[in-house]
């Protein structure tokens, strides 16, 4: 319990220090309310529209795969913790290692399947592909 009190204390300090720096900066810095400089940066041009647009993020399949593998790391860690002491206490190698190898193997088969289906490829938009072939021709 006491360790979580200490971690919570560091959490408080880790919020307090940035807030303190913001307070010091608020005392030091000038304020020149001029509107022209508030335009967002777009390489010196006048910005067109907002940044809240719909577009292809190009790796959503990878994001789905991430969920699978992240859950998998959660399941692997308890096994790595008990692995050695279980061996020391005389549990057979096939009993402790076999199921986990089968589990990792199943996931690797899944990864290979996703790989062959192009899920971990960088998705190119049809427009970019067309331009590329035009340029190569």
């Amino acid at each position, binding site marked *: 319990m006491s360790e979580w009190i200490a971690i919570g204390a560091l959490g408080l*300090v880790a919020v307090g220090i940035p807030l303190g720096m913001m307070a010091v900066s608020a005392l030091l810095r000038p304020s020149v309310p001029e509107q022209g400089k508030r335009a967002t940066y777009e390489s010196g041009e006048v910005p067109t529209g907002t940044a809240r647009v719909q577009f292809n993020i190009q790796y959503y399949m990878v994001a789905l795969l991430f969920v699978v593998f992240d859950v998998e790391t959660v399941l692997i860690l308890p096994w*790595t913790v008990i692995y050695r002491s279980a061996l020391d206490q005389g549990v057979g190698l096939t009993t402790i290692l076999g199921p986990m190898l089968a589990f990792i193997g199943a996931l690797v088969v899944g990864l290979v399947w996703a790989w062959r289906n192009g899920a971990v490829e960088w998705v190119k938009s049809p427009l970019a592909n067309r331009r590329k072939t035009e340029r190569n021709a």
Partner: protein
Amino acid sequence: MVTPLQSQVLLPERIAGLLGLSGTIGQIVGGLLGAFIIANLLLVQTAVAGPWAKRKITAAFTDRIAVNRVGPFGLVVIVADAVRLLSKELVIPEGVDRPAYDLGPLLVPFSALLGFAVIPMGNGIHLADPETGLVFAFAASSIASLGLVMMGYGSNNKYSLLGGLRAIASNIAYEIPLVVTAASVVVFTGTLQMSEIVAQQTQPLLSIAGVTIPQWFAIVNPFAFVLFVVANLAEVGRNPFDVPEAPTEIVAGFQTEYSSVYFVLIYLGEFIHIFLGGAIAATLFLGGPAGPFLPGFVWFTIKIWAFYLFTQWARSAIPRVRIDQFLDIGWKGMLVLSFANLALTAIIVGVIA
């Protein structure tokens, strides 16, 4: 079962003992003071690393001189730069998403500092030692990518948006190799507790001509160490994997629209993050604060600065990979290699033990 080699007094208990406090009050006061000490140790190191060492190291690599005007070796430039940066005007761009825009720069240093709660720094500078220490350190350091996404979405800037999305892509591609490689060390240690991981590495591996080589996991499993360091570079977003910022492609990524104290906070967070990455690597693979002759804290500082020097070396020496190459390296290279490493480690440990 493995028993602790030595009972270590943690920093909050020691402070509470010095102040003559006990019970919950002692835990809270000791915890707060200990946290304050650790945070300030990191702030001092970041202050040296950011405005001074980074310039000096890059200058040395590119055959320049860099800061040398104010104070010995130009060291007083740290104070000058701190005042200069904090006294800049804070320009809030049009159309920003206010809570997210302001919270992002707070989250980044928060997450990096929180991770240091479980890192044993030697000489009893160790704030907390929960049984889940290693997992906690990874969890705390991943909060930062949430801050990066908030900055990317909140800024109302297309470059920031791309930078924020790239930050998620890098996090999801390299988080799994990082954790799975760490799991291959846990196969050796059988525990996630940081003090125990360090204690096991003090045991001798072998003796050559009277010199005892300790059982550091970088020596026991150098392949895992290389994998971990590479995945760590991507996790902290440094070259050759600094695609979230990529100054020549997307200006400055998620931090394009930040000025004044917010800029300082983002940079502070990134440097503490590099140190946290180095600290986790040192604890897992390099025996934590262990080392001959010098006190533990000095060795710990040397190790995390060695990792910092490595990131700056890579920054000067290696070109940045493209975003699609970056994801390919993560998903097709690192992920497969880290699983091979875990399976082989488990088999070798099982056959030998």
